[in-house]
């Protein structure tokens, strides 16, 4: 469904992605893990059109999408739950959802239905529908951000660090939501620092280190991989024989 081929991206003069390739197949949950600064968010921003890749290709459902404007990419069916949630804090919860369905704005009925569906999924949002989104708690904001992304009826849902800045208990809740989405058969690209939680629910995973994929494979097998720890804690965590 999504194919990223040898993408190189620069942030100013930082070579942030050094030839990253990855793909997501329909119905799959793919986790992208790595420490801070490994380039996870850069990948997301590149896929979602906020940064143009210097080299390489990105294909979505067979169509090249690199270099398209973010709003066009949303229209093509990729929805992002951005890092730090990025909800519209000064808009009501309901308006946030409505904005999520912006690409379907002419189909009023569908937007209403989807909104009802989101409220059914997250009853807490229904309770808060008239509140300003900025007044929600972190976990509720994350739910709102996820719902907002789902409102565009995406073929691919990209979640960027959904656990960031949330308390462990809430993190568990968020991951159970993602798990649920996965079971519904949605295609998900999950970017996480929280490797364990992410790999537990992912079909496949990629481990990113300094802008490169150093490991990829099935979620549960990566989970026990020492190299994963190494990616987070540095060389000491897995001394290599010839090092």
């Amino acid at each position: 469904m999504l194919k990223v081929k040898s993408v190189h991206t620069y942030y100013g003069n930082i070579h942030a992605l050094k030839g990253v390739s990855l793909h997501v197949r329909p119905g799959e949950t793919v986790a992208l893990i790595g420490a801070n600064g490994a380039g996870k968010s850069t990948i997301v921003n590149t896929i979602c059109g906020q940064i143009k890749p210097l080299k390489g290709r990105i294909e979505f459902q067979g169509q090249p999408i690199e270099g398209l404007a973010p709003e066009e990419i949303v229209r093509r069916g990729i929805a992002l739950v951005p890092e730090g949630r990025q909800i519209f804090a000064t808009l009501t919860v309901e308006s946030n959802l409505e904005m999520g369905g912006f690409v379907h704005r002419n189909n009023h009925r569908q937007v209403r239905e989807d909104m009802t569906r989101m409220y059914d999924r997250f009853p807490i949002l229904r309770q808060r529908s008239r509140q300003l989104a900025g007044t929600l708690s972190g976990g509720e904001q994350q739910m709102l951000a996820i719902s907002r992304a789902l409102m565009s009826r995406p073929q691919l849902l990209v979640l960027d660090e959904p656990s960031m800045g949330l308390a462990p208990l809430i993190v568990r809740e968020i991951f159970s939501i993602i798990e649920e989405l996965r079971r519904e058969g949605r295609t998900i690209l999950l970017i996480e620092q929280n490797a364990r939680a992410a790999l537990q629910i992912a079909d496949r995973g990629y481990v990113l280190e300094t802008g490169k994929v150093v490991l990829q494979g099935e979620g549960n097998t990566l989970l026990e991989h020492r190299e994963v720890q190494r990616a987070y804690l540095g060389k000491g965590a897995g001394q290599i024989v010839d090092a």
Partner: protein
Amino acid sequence: MTEHTLAMDILQYTISGLTVGVIYAMVALGYNIIYNVTEIINFAQGEFVMLGGLFAAFFVGTFGMPIHFAFFSAVFTTACVGLIMERFVIRRARNTGVLSLIIITIAISIMLKGSAMLWWGKDPYSLPPFSSGGPIMIGGAALQPQALWIFGVSALVVLLLTLFFRRSVYGKAMLACADNPGAARMVGIPVRQMVLLSFILSAAIGAAAGVVITPISMMEYDRGAMLGLKGFGAAVLGGLGQFFGALVAGAILGLAESFCAGYLSSGYKDAVALVLLLLALFFKPEGIFGSGEAAKLKKF
């Protein structure tokens, strides 16, 4: 002076203060709309008001249009000016930095002013009031029927704006752009078009204000700067980006001005609004109704 006339005076000043205050508020709305979406302060905002008034006078005077029709034509024409300004100048200069943007909008403002002078000359133009009839006397104070029109039109504008931003998808999308342009793009909102829309909208609102005050105060080519400055005062005082705040702040400015003119010196009435603006900038740049928290995060 007796108590009676003092009360009458106060009433009179209040009425005329509110009348101009509402106009300032409408200019402030224009600032707010553009600022909301782009974080740009459009120094040419006042010129939209001037253009509105002069276009209307032109349509009435030259084409003999009925006043109501001229109103809409003037609003439409000015909106086109806003469109051209955004599309051909601002959009190209978006990334040049704050200093350049300030200078560019100032440049546009003096170009508009210069063009207006060339076109209409330096004479003030007037418009017939929207409805005929003498002033209405209320408790000894005179109320021009046109003032009612001013209140009416601004009430309508505020109402429509409120509806637009509360109800319509595009209005909310504009708010979303203001709130978080990055996230707005990520949900598929075409931010550029929203910016364009904001310029069109604020030009239209400015023009509407210009048309409705022209019957009372006339309009000439160089009124824009002062109206713009005072409108900005109202916008800052009310909290940049706050529609309701702008309305209240506009009224405060208008009243302050009117009472100053009445009791101190009419020459300094313009300065009063500016002093209030400076005080607001120095001591409460987030405005009366703006939240301190939010203001901290914005770029000044």
